């Protein structure tokens, strides 16, 4: 059977199961819609959280990023897992004890302020919409590439599926669908990795294969040699900016992870406080399976790719791959434009090296001829590069779709609950009945899907840049205000609002100064400023600084204004201990 038939079968089966689950567990109450009735077991919730958290970015992009940044890519691995320790210790159990539905609801009640609640809603919507655009785009691309439809059709099919099970089932439907999606995506990620590890190192466990031997020398050492011979920097030691930048980047991602509303609300679905702690542990177990496999996939893919193009000794004419003998996957990806070759010296061979490093040009080389190697193709092309059977390639497609859809559904729920529960029920029309609220949340979700679809059809070309905004916002606004709300009884309304606005403002200012206001180039407002002006910290890593500003401003303001109300203090006292 060919790859296309396999893709239809595997993707079709997985989608049928998502829809079946949606019909089986339709949400009847707001509690079921927002928090799945609060009765999900910790392991099941852990698995759903893992699927919710791991998006198309984790599944498709991360290994590619690491493959081309080597040790520097560690910031993603540590940042996106270490945040769960913060969640388990600092937020999840206390917010579960609080026992209501949404993050802005907690902020509003703890800081006895509708303003604080509205600021939180605004942050939540910006964070979630930013994320959802990326997911919808991933769905559209995956469909159009493998089902050979055009991009728009792929996007509409994806929107239809999400619409069906998220709107109908709410959190209840989403939770059980995400469990299935986790199984699909983790299977799809690890199976090719196991095959490739076995092929290269003889060890079936990729995590061990990464430390295994290839032709008698350690894989990582060989990779270092192979790529430094072509002028690239050493895999195991190349950093991402300065040490301070790596530090700040990792911290931003950790705090940002712990501050993402769609992840936090998952911990409202378990029955008890102790289950919330345990559930964070299980979530990280399920995430770690993918996150410890990713560096193996990255290193092995980089080695395979480099050795395919440079099979022989560097500098000899026959050492570089002859263009006419390029493998099938190379041709396939050339069609997408994500892989490009230009024969600069007209010798019919491919010279792939770091041409900004003059010393590595051999006689007759006229510059790097692999003019485009898109990082995002690594995971998708991996099974083809390793010549794995068609069903494995199809599985990877189903996995990528599962990752994108599960995250999209979780985000849409976070958006719709913020609108129907926080804005409508909480502020605008407190008198509406549960039934009306439930309908409103479904309408809000339809609106959110339409908005995400619109941006998916007309993708703003700043999709990659907005990720910095989403993490920066979560790190500099939501996380500090939640943490202070639990750990400081003295923190008051004025401090929290000032902190959120200051943290957010500083982060936005820094990102916009570097990338243009709303990402429009050349609109930097402070004149020309040196790249990464503040201590060499890149805009993507600035969330950590924003968070520090948030904490500092909040404490300064609150210690100069009146104490919080007695109810707020009682609330803090109540959520700090489990039980009644």
């Amino acid at each position, binding site marked *: 059977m060919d790859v296309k038939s396999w893709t239809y079968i595997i993707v079709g089966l997985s989608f049928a199961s998502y829809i079946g689950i949606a019909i089986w567990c339709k949400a009847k109450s707001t509690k079921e819609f927002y928090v799945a009735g609060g009765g999900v077991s910790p392991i099941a919730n852990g698995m759903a959280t893992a699927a919710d958290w791991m998006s198309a970015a984790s599944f498709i992009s991360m290994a590619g990023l690491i493959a081309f940044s080597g040790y520097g890519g560690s910031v993603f691995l540590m940042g996106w897992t270490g945040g769960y320790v913060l969640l388990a210790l600092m937020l999840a159990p206390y917010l579960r004890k609080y026992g209501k539905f949404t993050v802005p609801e907690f902020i509003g009640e703890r800081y006895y302020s509708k303003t604080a609640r509205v600021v939180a809603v605004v942050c939540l919507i910006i964070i979630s919409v930013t994320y959802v655009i990326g997911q919808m785009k991933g769905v559209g691309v995956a469909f159009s590439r493998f089902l050979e439809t055009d991009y728009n059709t792929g996007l509409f099919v994806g929107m239809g599926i999400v619409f069906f099970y998220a709107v109908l089932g709410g959190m209840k439907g989403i939770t059980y669908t995400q469990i299935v999606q986790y199984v699909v995506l983790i299977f799809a990620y690890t199976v090719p990795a196991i095959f490739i590890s076995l092929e290269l190192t003889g060890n079936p466990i990729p995590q061990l294969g990464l430390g295994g031997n290839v032709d008698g020398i350690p894989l990582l050492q060989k990779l270092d040699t192979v790529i430094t011979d072509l002028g690239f920097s050493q895999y195991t030691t190349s950093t991402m900016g300065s040490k301070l930048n790596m530090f700040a980047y990792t911290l931003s991602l950790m705090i940002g992870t712990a501050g993402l509303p769609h992840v936090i609300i998952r911990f409202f679905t378990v029955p008890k406080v*102790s289950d919330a702690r345990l559930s964070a542990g299980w979530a990280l177990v399920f995430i770690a399976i993918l996150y410890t496999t990713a560096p193996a996939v990255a290193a092995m893919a980089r080695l395979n790719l480099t050795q395919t193009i440079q099979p022989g000794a560097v500098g000899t004419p026959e050492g570089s791959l002859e263009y006419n003998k390029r493998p099938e996957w190379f041709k396939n990806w050339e069609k997408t434009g994500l892989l490009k070759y230009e024969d600069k010296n007209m010798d019919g061979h491919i010279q792939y090296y770091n041409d900004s490093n003059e010393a590595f040009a051999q006689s007759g080389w006229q510059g790097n001829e692999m003019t485009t190697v898109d990082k995002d193709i690594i995971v998708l092309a991996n099974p083809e590069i390793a010549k794995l059977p068609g069903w494995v390639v199809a599985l990877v497609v189903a996995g990528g779709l599962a990752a994108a859809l599960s995250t999209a559904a979780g985000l849409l729920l976070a958006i719709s609950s913020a609108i129907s529960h926080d804005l409508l029920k909480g502020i605008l029309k407190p008198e509406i009945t549960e039934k009306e609220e439930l309908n409103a949340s479904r309408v809000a979700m339809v609106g959110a899907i339409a908005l995400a679809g619109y941006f998916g059809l007309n993708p703003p070309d700043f999709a990659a840049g907005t990720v910095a905004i989403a993490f920066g916002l979560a790190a500099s606004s939501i996380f500090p205000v939640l943490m202070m709300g639990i750990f400081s009884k003295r923190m008051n309304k004025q401090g929290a609002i000032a902190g959120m606005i200051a943290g957010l403002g500083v982060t936005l200012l820094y990102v916009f100064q570097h990338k243009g206001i709303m990402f429009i180039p050349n609109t930097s407002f402070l004149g020309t400023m040196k790249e990464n002006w503040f201590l060499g910290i890149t805009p993507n890593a600035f969330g950590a600084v924003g968070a520090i500003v948030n904490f500092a401003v909040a404490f300064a303001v609150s210690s100069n204004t009146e104490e919080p109300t007695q109810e707020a203090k009682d609330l803090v006292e*109540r959520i700090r201990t489990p039980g009644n």
Partner: protein
Amino acid sequence: MADTDPPHNNRQAYWRENLRIMTYIMAIWFFVSFGCGILFVEQLNKINLGGFQFGFWMAQQGSIYVFVILIFIYVRMMNNLDKKYSFTEMEELQSDSGPEEEADGR
């Protein structure tokens, strides 16, 4: 409901012990990721662990395993602490009667 409540000072003692446990765990969390994975990575890279340089392994593998272990240790210690202060959670009776009542419970 009120008569099963532990006295106020018990709550304080529970919270203090919780903070102490948290501090230990966060210290290890910081050490394995920011310490071993970033600050001292060059020094640790001089140590070889199988086919890995140790610093690189900590950054891309080891720290993640430690994070998982840390959460489970925290779960265990907190469950013991809950028992010690008898903050045992009765199987969610209040959850069926809706979250509003739970909030009014105090």
